[in-house]
């Protein structure tokens, strides 16, 4: 009946969702009037488990919060423990941390682009972006030994160095990636079909994005110039990062931010490879962490927050992780009302959701 409301359980298993998430959508005809998320399908109790493991073992645990930004989870955790134990990381390790962080950002954004393209049926864009992503995965494997969870970050530095020969391979990889992006960018920025599906879809204002605590590309697509790399952790003190912003506040603006951020990551990798100093890659960290600290890192989806509390023993009293997707769920609930049902997958994918991160 026209005007009557119906409730559609969107997910948890849905062709466009790579992970289980349910949205309870209240519809009037084809229009969404209300959306409520239901999660808990992949909750693993990682924060509780972190209290049972030794603080050194937790690095491997936090890397498994999310495969896509695993290195940055380890980085945020290690930085927090290093602050508590007053450990100064060698300069070379700070640069290596930046190189692996930006490689993760590149493969994460390319993975997201493929998923977004798939959500509106652009399969050739999906295949092209995932094909390009393989080059990043290969160089990750060459430099770290693993494609996804690389386990190179340790307390006090990094576990592995990158040789001169492999640094040259890293540069070759980002050159190839840049050439690929020159093909991908005009498709995302100018293609008629892409713009038809993305422009104006899931729009929020800058004021809403700020008030709802959105982070990462979701915030920057609303003109909020906020990127935690600006604070200068790791080697971002020497390699300056200017937040990439757009003003549209819609799915198209979020896509533009991520595409432009890939170029920025390529530049950062080149700078890091050029300027990396010689020297040690780690210093020993002795003792146990005591006190409480907050460590933050800019992941591909936005800022992650680690609260770490140690009591001087090998076990932590508390480890709390606020992931970027968790912060972007409230903005998502504001984007959905008023949209057509067919645009729900596009809007959800436009925030680049990571449910493993959200639930931990």
């Amino acid at each position, binding site marked *: 009946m026209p005007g009557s409301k119906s409730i559609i359980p969107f997910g948890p298993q849905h062709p466009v969702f790579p992970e289980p998430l349910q949205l309870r959508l209240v519809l009037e005809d084809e229009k969404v009037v209300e959306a409520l998320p239901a999660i808990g399908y992949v909750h693993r109790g990682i924060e509780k488990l972190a209290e049972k493991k030794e603080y050194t073992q937790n690095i491997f645990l936090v890397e498994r919060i999310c495969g896509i930004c695993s290195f940055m989870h380890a980085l945020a955790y290690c930085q927090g423990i290093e602050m508590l134990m007053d450990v100064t990381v060698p300069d070379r390790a700070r640069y290596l941390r930046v190189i692996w962080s930006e490689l993760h950002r590149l493969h994460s954004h390319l993975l997201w682009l493929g998923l977004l393209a798939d959500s509106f049926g652009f399969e050739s864009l999906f295949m092209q972006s995932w094909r390009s992503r393989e080059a990043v995965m290969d160089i990750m494997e060459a430099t770290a030994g693993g494609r996804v969870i690389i386990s190179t970050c340790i307390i006090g530095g990094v576990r592995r160095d990158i040789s001169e020969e492999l640094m040259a391979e890293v540069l070759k990889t980002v050159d190839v990636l840049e050439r690929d992006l020159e093909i991908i960018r005009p498709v995302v920025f100018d293609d008629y079909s892409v713009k038809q599906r993305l422009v104006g879809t899931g729009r929020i204002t800058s004021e809403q994005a700020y*008030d709802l*605590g959105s982070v990462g590309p979701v915030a920057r697509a609303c003109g909020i110039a906020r990127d935690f790399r600006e604070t200068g952790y790791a080697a971002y003190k020497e390699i300056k990062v200017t937040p990439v912003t757009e003003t549209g506040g819609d799915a198209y603006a979020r896509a533009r931010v991520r595409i432009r951020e890939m170029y920025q990551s390529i530049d950062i990798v080149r700078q890091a490879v050029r300027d990396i100093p010689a020297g040690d890659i780690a210093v020993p960290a002795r003792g146990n962490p005591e006190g409480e600290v907050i460590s933050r890192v800019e992941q591909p989806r936005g800022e992650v*927050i680690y*609260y770490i509390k140690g009591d001087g023993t090998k076990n932590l009293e508390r480890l709390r992780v606020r992931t970027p997707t968790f912060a972007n769920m*409230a903005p998502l609930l504001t984007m959905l009302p008023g949209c057509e049902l067919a645009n729900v997958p596009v809007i959800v994918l436009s925030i680049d959701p990571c449910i493993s991160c959200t639930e931990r």
Partner: protein
Amino acid sequence: MSLMNTVAVSPDRLLQEVAGKYRQRYRFATMTCTDIGDGYDILYHFDKDYELCNLRLYLKKGEELPSISSIFFAALLVENEIKDLFSIPIRDLVIDYGGRFLLTEDAPVAPMGREGCSRAIDIRLQGAPEEEDK
């Protein structure tokens, strides 16, 4: 090392302090809850220009926590999470999942509490023989 920019607040002053943060254009970052035995150590983290400001609240076990979700809508998700994982009653949530945000009916109670799971998880599969049938 102790947490910088942290101010203690009592439950009855909480909403006033949080409204002050909203007026000062702070963004809600998240909350952290820790079971400290006789009560809970609850931290509210707010951010402005990359600076974190924290409110620290001590809540006795069994007491109710006022929700700040009417001031910062974004807080509703983490408040529901804390309600699930610590079994803390939270009043005036703008959307209340009733303790079923993350957990299902057969999940352990207060899994993030100090004692861990206060009720054993019944992992027996549906249709499996009862203990006495074996």
